[in-house]
């Protein structure tokens, strides 16, 4: 089997070389068709707020929501940060529940779906367009997003479905329909259906095409140029084997290797920062300076702000609703505890990992500065000019490579693994939305899985621009029904919150571990 696969791949690669021109034109065709189909949707999602300087309404939508939840829950992300860590450590876990999904496992699984290319490529896109100042807004969005995550994940556990066979399903589609019904509100089912449709698109976009696209870009950066559909096909076959063939061992290995890669990535970033410790103050100066002045980037400080907010939302998915699906399997009698745990997710993802990437890119000197004015040099595409004209994941790779020459190889492996694990996670989110719409059943599931694999090939073949636009648009669209639902259901979370906090303070809820 192995040999057949190997021979097939080699033969495929050779025939690909001989028909490079044809293949490239295939890529171009896929790209053109894809861009023309998706542009109306993308244009609608990123339409600017009236009377603003091109500020997309959907970004404003998410930021306002995160701010509302932050205020409504009295800065829960800061007040209960320590408690969240205590919960993850298992201090409050009942020993009789051993063998069930722990808070740590729910968080780790959710993180494996969010930590990935958004942290590596997405940050590079943000910094490449919005300058280092985008980092400041990214951190702000990450900190506020913690409250949004808290709200949606509490609801995800509270309104999950627990089936007779012992399996669980949760997520916005369930809390929108069940929660609204409980409160006697109309429209819950409609919002749930809308969410499911957008979730499927998000799974195919950000959770699939963007991943395939950037994984291909990274592989090309290391081994040289070759058509994207080859990477797409290989990825599609492996994902197909896992999600259709049920070869769980591949997914299991990835789940174990990805956290290791994540730690290694942060470790490498810390080493680079330690070596260049004298520039850290300067880098933070660029981040704060750029946050309010833009330092010459297109769109000024608003440009930096939009990019920061956009990429933070794309990376940590707070308010998007996907995490509510991931966190809902935890074993707990108190849904709010998973809300507390989930607020660590944007912190780890955005405040820690994204900031590391941004600092390394800034310090590496890959972004070209005009020596006379001290402002960033902007190219004709409106992006900051970089050494070697890199963008996205290749910019991050070049930044790490400028300090540790062999790191791009490690990064290439990490990117491929991150992309793969994110795809597996999103195939699950997409499937849950799909089965919510079309019902459970082997045949309906197979249809979605086949579509999912097909989109991997499209994603790897298309160029970054249209893919990233569609991925953003699809992912953000999920936030429309989700956030509307959260506004109506946040009082349910508040009631849970008040009850839990009073019992925690009275000592009724005790630690099991000393």
């Amino acid at each position, binding site marked *: 089997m192995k040999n057949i696969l190997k021979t097939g791949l080699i033969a495929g690669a050779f025939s690909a070389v001989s028909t490079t021109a044809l293949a490239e034109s295939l890529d171009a065709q896929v790209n053109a068709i894809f861009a023309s189909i998706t542009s109306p949707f993308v244009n609608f999602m990123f339409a600017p707020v009236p009377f603003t300087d091109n500020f997309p309404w959907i970004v404003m939508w998410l930021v306002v929501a995160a701010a509302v939840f932050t205020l409504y829950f009295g800065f829960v992300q800061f007040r209960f940060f320590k408690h969240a860590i205590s919960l993850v450590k298992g201090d409050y876990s009942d020993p009789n529940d*051993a*063998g069930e999904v*722990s808070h740590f496992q729910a968080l*780790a699984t959710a993180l494996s*779906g969010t930590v990935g290319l958004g942290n590596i490529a997405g940050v590079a896109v943000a910094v490449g367009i919005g300058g280092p100042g985008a980092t400041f807004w990214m951190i702000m969005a990450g900190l506020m997003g913690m409250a949004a995550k808290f709200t949606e994940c509490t609801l995800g556990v509270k309104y999950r479905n627990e089936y007779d066979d*012992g*399996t*669980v399903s949760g997520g916005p589609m369930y809390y929108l329909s069940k929660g609204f019904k409980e409160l006697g509100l109309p429209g819950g089912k409609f919002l749930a259906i809308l969410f499911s449709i957008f979730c499927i698109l998000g799974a195919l976009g950000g959770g699939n095409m963007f991943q395939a696209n950037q994984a291909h870009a990274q592989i090309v950066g290391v081994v040289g140029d070759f058509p994207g559909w080859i990477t797409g096909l290989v990825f599609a076959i492996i994902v197909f084997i896992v999600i259709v063939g049920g070869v*769980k061992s591949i997914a299991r290995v990835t789940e174990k290797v990805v956290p290791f890669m994540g730690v290694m990535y942060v470790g490498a970033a810390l080493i680079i920062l330690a070596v260049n410790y004298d520039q850290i103050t300067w880098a933070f100066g660029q981040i704060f300076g750029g946050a309010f002045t833009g330092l010459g980037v297109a769109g000024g400080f608003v440009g930096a702000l939009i990019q920061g907010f956009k990429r933070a939302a794309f990376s940590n998915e707070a308010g998007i609703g996907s995490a509510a699906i991931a966190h809902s399997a935890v074993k707990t009698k108190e849904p709010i505890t998973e809300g507390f745990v989930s607020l660590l997710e944007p912190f780890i993802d955005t405040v820690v990992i994204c900031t590391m990437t941004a600092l390394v890119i800034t310090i590496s000197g890959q972004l070209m500065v005009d020596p006379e004015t001290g402002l960033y040099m902007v190219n004709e595409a409106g992006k900051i000019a970089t050494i070697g004209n890199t963008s996205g994941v290749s910019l991050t790779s070049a930044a790490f490579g400028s300090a540790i020459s062999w790191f791009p190889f490690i990064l290439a492996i990490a990117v491929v693994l991150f992309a793969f694990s994110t795809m597996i996670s999103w195939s699950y989110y997409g499937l849950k939305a799909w089965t919510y719409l079309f019902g459970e059943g082997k045949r309906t599931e197979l249809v979605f899985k086949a579509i999912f694999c097909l989109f991997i090939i499209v994603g790897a073949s298309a160029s970054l621009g249209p893919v990233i636009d569609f991925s953003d648009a699809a992912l953000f669209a999920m936030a429309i029904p989700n956030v509307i639902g959260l506004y109506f259901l946040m009082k349910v979370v508040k009631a849970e919150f008040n009850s839990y906090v009073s019992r925690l303070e009275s000592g009724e809820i005790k630690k099991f571990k000393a």
Partner: protein
Amino acid sequence: MTVKIVVGIDGHETGSRAIDYGKRMAGLIGDCELLVAYIIEWSPYSFQTQEENAERHKRREEEIATAKERIIDPAVKALVDAGVKARGIVRHGNVADALDAICVEEKGDQIIVSRSSQGGIAKRIFGSSTANLVMGASVPVTVVG
């Protein structure tokens, strides 16, 4: 007062040696209950896929049922048939910690386990469950060779 002895078994032949020894001890003591325990190795800090999480509760129940049916129930039945007072317990967790926890909860007087069936590199790095139990247990531990 009834003396309670926790007997840890791992489903291998080595585990039955621990049961044999426990049986002999129970005979010598007289008023004695054997708590036959099987621990399903599990860590709350392991990494799982979305699907594994969704199915975890179901799997846990299946694991407990299988362990009871294949390992614990036959062992307990054999002891009861031989006139020894015995009870079965199945838990998830770290073997050493869980056996000790059972002993503390049940106010056990002693733990009997067999020598480790684990070998190789894992044993060298992490130490065997038996060795960990001996080092951390709250009551005397007898290791049957």
